[in-house]
């Protein structure tokens, strides 16, 4: 019981430190299907270019988002805003997303609206 509390304490600590509010967060869907459609190139491009362009951002990989028809897909969370998912993000699209959405908050075509409920709001 005590150990469980300890673990939970650790979890809640991590939860806080894991949510850096000031950073741009980018998640790239990297399941087999995404990788096959070029998600790796997209991810490498995002990591390199965000650094080159001096944008403080965390780029991580994640699993399948379910939008196989629009791979590669990425999710971008700007500080203090709702996450936005973009579909069919090749290198050129990634560049457009950095220049427009990440830098100025301007939307670009190809946003995928979230069409599901998660258990978090149940």
């Amino acid at each position: 019981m005590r150990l469980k509390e300890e673990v939970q304490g650790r979890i809640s600590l991590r939860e806080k430190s894991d949510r850096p509010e000031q950073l741009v967060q980018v998640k790239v869907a990297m399941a087999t299907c995404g990788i096959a459609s070029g998600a790796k190139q997209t991810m490498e491009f995002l990591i390199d270019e965000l650094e080159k362009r001096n944008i403080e951002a965390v780029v991580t990989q994640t699993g399948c988002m379910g939008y196989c028809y629009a791979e590669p897909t990425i999710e971008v969370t700007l500080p203090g805003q709702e996450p936005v998912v973009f579909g069919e993000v090749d290198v050129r699209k990634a560049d457009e997303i950095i220049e427009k959405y990440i830098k100025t908050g301007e939307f670009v075509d190809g946003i995928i609206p979230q069409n599901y409920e998660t258990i978090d709001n149940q």
Partner: protein
Amino acid sequence: MSKYNMHLLVCGGTGCRASASDSIVTQLRKELESRGLEDQVQVIMTGCFGFCEKGPIVKVMPDNTFYVEVKPEDAAAIVAEHVVKGRKVEHLLYLDPEQQAHVSDSKHMGFYKKQLRIALRNCGFINPENIDEAIARDAYAALGKVLSEMTPEQAIKVIMDAGLRGRGGGGFPAGLKWSLARKNEADEKYVVCNADEGDPGAFMDRSILEGDPHSVLEAMAICGYCIGSSKGLIYIRAEYPLAIERLKIALDQAREYGLLGKNILGSDFDFDIELRYGAGAFVCGEETALIHSMEGLRGEPTLKPPFPAESGYKGKPTNVNNVETLANVPVIFLKGAKWFSEIGTEKSKGTKVFALAGKINNVGLIEVPMGTTLREVIFEIGGGIKNGKKFKAVQTGGPSGGCLTEKHLSTPIDFDNLIAAGSMMGSGGMIVIDEDDCMVSMAKFFLEFTVEESCGKCSPCRIGNKRLYEILEKITNGKGTMADLDNLRNLSVVIKDTSLCGLGQSSPNPVLSTLDNFWDEYIEHVMEKKCRAGQCKALLRYEIVAENCVGCTACARACPVNAIRGERKQIHEIDQSICIKCGACFEKCKFDAVIIK
């Protein structure tokens, strides 16, 4: 930070595009420009909202107003009223059929979101290679709860009360399976995760393992505690290298955190998991064959009983659950059995993940509550049929399942309804078939798969399926007789009744269900030697219509076997004895002179 203070999101899904969402965008931009607002309001085309029935959709951000069935001529009203005056355009708002009131805000119309993600809760959210992210989203919290607060019996009761049924295809109650494995006493027991996903077109389990491996590891540990086992095995196909890699990383991280291994979370419960690779034989998805394969024997099934719960891996009590079943387990402990059992239908609780494939616009991985209709899945979430073609059938349950047709579209999807309709849930592959697909060829495709994958141990399956395949081939070659159709049905029934394992017992299902639902297509193939979908090449005949032919020689140049004769500016002709029916001439002709008969 943005120079825009308002966004108009126009659905650019295929369904909405077909109903003119392109020109809605143009009209909106034009209206904005005429008022000099183009620098403040941005119009953006998005992917599918999954609400195609009410398309085209226009969503206004930031106030989340959701307009449905918008026409290009409505653009003026949206700009004049909503953008300029800040008043919502009432008649374009969604009308709640129950309350007869307009719903203005998409946050209050959660019901339009047909999907509910339980098994996929973390897929696409967390970095699967980082256990901290999983823990931040409650991974291993259920394990902690079970170990510290519950006896194994209590925990099994939770799964029973939740009504969780096996997602691998059979639909056997998971709680009952666990309790059977618990009852059988032995010095060692095993928890096996069946990750041998073999249905063509199915990728649910792979996506879960690649996106959220910890949910499966956690559930296996919980299962181990419940049945009294300290050893877990994951049987995964070697052709899933990324899933294997991520599982290995997850296992290492879980061990490092003390979530696997000795004295988990300070309790006296020990549990660890090993990976076992399969070579990708379909039959190894059957639990007894899977166990033999793990023992290093041939992947052949054995007769049940004895069930694995009595005598499984190395003769010890073994509990085999599918990946998706396990992925549901932790949530049930965190949210409660009652919460879970309120989702779904009377006898099928919770949600089901489907891999949507085939002739459908939004190919993808979806998770819907049991009881969602096929229509909602295919025409709403799936965005309808590709290229505006007509829906013909949907194949569920892979090679063991059957076809469901238009008359089944309103059937709520659950284990029992699909069986009653002549198909089955299976592991969750859903292949959508349109009018260009031949149902006899489709049955033949699945039979070819079964013939290849039959282990050969029992004769009904080994020989019977081969004969079934040969009869189907005869029919698609235009040599079938009415007696063949009788034989098809009789043989199918015999194979089902006499085969040893689930593979043979279900392999004739594609034949039987197409015979039942598409009898007229079989008759056409046999009596008229005609394939209405134009897929059975032997039954096709390309001909040139003399009136339309201008003698341009395009077809003759395209023909790979020089089967087309005719001088320049003269009428051409196809030599049927040489023609290989590749269709090159048909595609090349600009004058509709080449026809398929």
